[in-house]
């Protein structure tokens, strides 16, 4: 059954553009990808970009200027479906880290002084859903290529993609690694959504949490366990906040209260 090709667009806001680059770096799939839909806009890969109505908009990056707010709202208006890709778009990314020390204004000043921009009006970085409705989230810093193409294939078939419902630990066991928590390391695996194939623990390095929270994180048990291993609440929180932009903390708060 031949389907009509969908109109899609890919956009990057504030971030490292790693998620779009993951797609571009998937050399073996690139031709199929470009053939699978009418790619109306993908500024990282092509130049003849159009501002047309879209079936799906994929958005990378967080929103960090007034101009970006307007742009993302404009994309939302002409897109039937809006998909946030990558940790920045889904949760705000590192730049939306809650520091609990000083406000964004002060930090901005400490980098740029009393200067002001002529070309942009910076605001504190926030995830996409702080400004427009997001229909689907594909987390990761960066996203996993296989997961992206699986999700993408579902979306262009107009069906809701299946996402892992399990934490990184499951993938870590599948890869036959030793549990780093049992080795006394500050691993965030149990709280973080699978999808990355447990890449860090597979290199003997604790999960840093770059895929955001798993839907059913048992935060209190993880905290209790880590405290038992000798970590302070302050250390655990700090680690959890690195890749947990404001978006993650919001969901963790729902589960656990303040983190």
């Amino acid at each position, binding site marked *: 059954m031949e389907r009509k090709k969908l109109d899609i667009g890919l956009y990057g806001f504030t971030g490292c553009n*790693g998620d779009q680059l993951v797609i571009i770096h998937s050399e073996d799939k690139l031709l199929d990808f470009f053939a699978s839909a009418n790619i109306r806009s993908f500024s990282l890969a092509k130049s003849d970009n159009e501002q047309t109505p879209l079936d799906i908009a994929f958005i990378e990056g967080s929103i960090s200027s007034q101009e970006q707010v307007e742009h993302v709202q404009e994309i939302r208006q002409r897109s039937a479906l809006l998909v946030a890709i990558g940790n920045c778009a889904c949760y705000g990314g590192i730049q939306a880290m809650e520091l609990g020390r000083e406000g964004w204004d002060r930090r901005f000043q400490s980098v740029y002084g009393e200067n002001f921009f*002529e070309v942009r009006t910076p605001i504190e970085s926030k995830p996409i859903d702080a400004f427009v409705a997001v229909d689907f989230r594909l987390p990761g810093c960066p996203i996993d290529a296989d997961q992206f193409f699986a999700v993408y294939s579902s979306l262009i078939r107009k069906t809701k993609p299946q996402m892992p419902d399990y934490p990184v630990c499951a993938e870590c066991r599948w890869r036959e690694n030793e549990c780093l928590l049992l080795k006394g390391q500050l691993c965030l695996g149990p709280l973080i959504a699978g999808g990355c194939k447990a890449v860090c623990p597979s290199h003997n390095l604790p999960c840093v949490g770059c895929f955001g929270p798993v839907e059913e994180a048992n935060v209190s048990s993880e905290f209790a366990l880590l405290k038992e291993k000798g970590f302070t609440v302050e250390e655990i929180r700090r680690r959890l906040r690195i890749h947990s932009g404001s978006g993650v903390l919001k969901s963790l708060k729902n589960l656990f209260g303040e983190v």
Partner: protein
Amino acid sequence: MREILVEPLARVEGDGGITIRAEGKKVHEVRFDILEGTRLVETLVIGKTPEEDVSITCRICAICTLSHRYAALRGLEKALGIEVPPKVQALRSLMHLGELLESHSLHVFLLALPDFLGYPNAVAMAEKYGPEVVQALALKKFANHVMTVTSGRMIHGENPTVGGFGKYPEKDILLDIARQAQAMIPFAEKAVGLIAGLSVPDYFEDDTVFMCCEPGDDGFGLMGDRIRISDGKVVDAKEYRTLTNEKFSPHSAAKHCLYQGKPYTVGAIARCNNLGERMNGLAGKLFKKHWNKRWLRNPVFNNLAQAIEMVWALEQVSKTVDAVLQYPDDPPIVKPTRQSGEGVGSVEAPRGTLYHAYRIQDGLVAEANLIIPTGQSLEDIEKYMRKAVEILLSQGADDSAIRLQAEIIVRAFDPCISCSTHMVRFERHDPR
């Protein structure tokens, strides 16, 4: 007023653009706008452990993620009194070569070349240059593979960590990398010939200063604790502030740098101009064959410099693999010898010198200062563009010609890959 706006310039590590304002033959303004949203990374790392810092700062850029990681590791390890064993050094060199190849192959083949050959993009170029495009993609894929094997994943791999690596790659995989690198050299050599054959416009040539890391040991390289400047000086990287003199520019979220009040250039062309004589092997031959004095005055030769560096890097890969395999696996991670200290890490990212300067207090980052290559070349980018626009206007060039030339200049600096694909959006305002 005639206004040529290039916005969005898709991205220069995000969001950028070109603004040209002119009236008649008089240029009012030529700006390379960096519109990227501010991330304040230097403030994010305060109070973090060194490991956490590395995980944060590498995410500044997806293309040079490993250069950021490498610079951070070197700065932090200096501060913490960590001496990594030679195996770790060798493996870091390998990952760094992988990144150079990834970034350069993307820029040279997919972004810069189509312009010169008169195509809108690499896919269109494939019609006439099919095998070349296929091989270019194979080279990029290989480079991504090297990054994946050494760092854990293609982008933001966490494997290179403070004091060493989480895990060493398997021997068989490394040997295969060495073999593949050798097999790619003939194509890379051919690419140098192809790019050397392109005509480089000369009307905007001008003097400038070049800066890069001094690798020491009389070799060509991508990392060193001293900075070599084309005026003959060699300065300790700890003095980076006096070299870079960051200043705020109201149209740019990236700060501009000046050396002794003057613009300067970093990147492949700076490395080749300062150190190219030291290249040996095939890369050395190619350098001697193609280098001439115009390289000192024309940034567009950066494309050719990158092509030669790719040959150098491919030759270097097998040597580096041998070095990695020569040492035993243990110990994988070296512990800090102190909990407080200062350190500056300087490495050559594909597009130029990158500094990560840290002060560590009781095991946590107390101060951080990061200086990125694109910021250092910004003044030169604007300088050359302005000169080009002035000349073109005096010759009565139309907007599209000006646009193309501005693009070629900005793109030559490779400010960050993707920006070059479609940087100019045209808005013509009729003179009042």
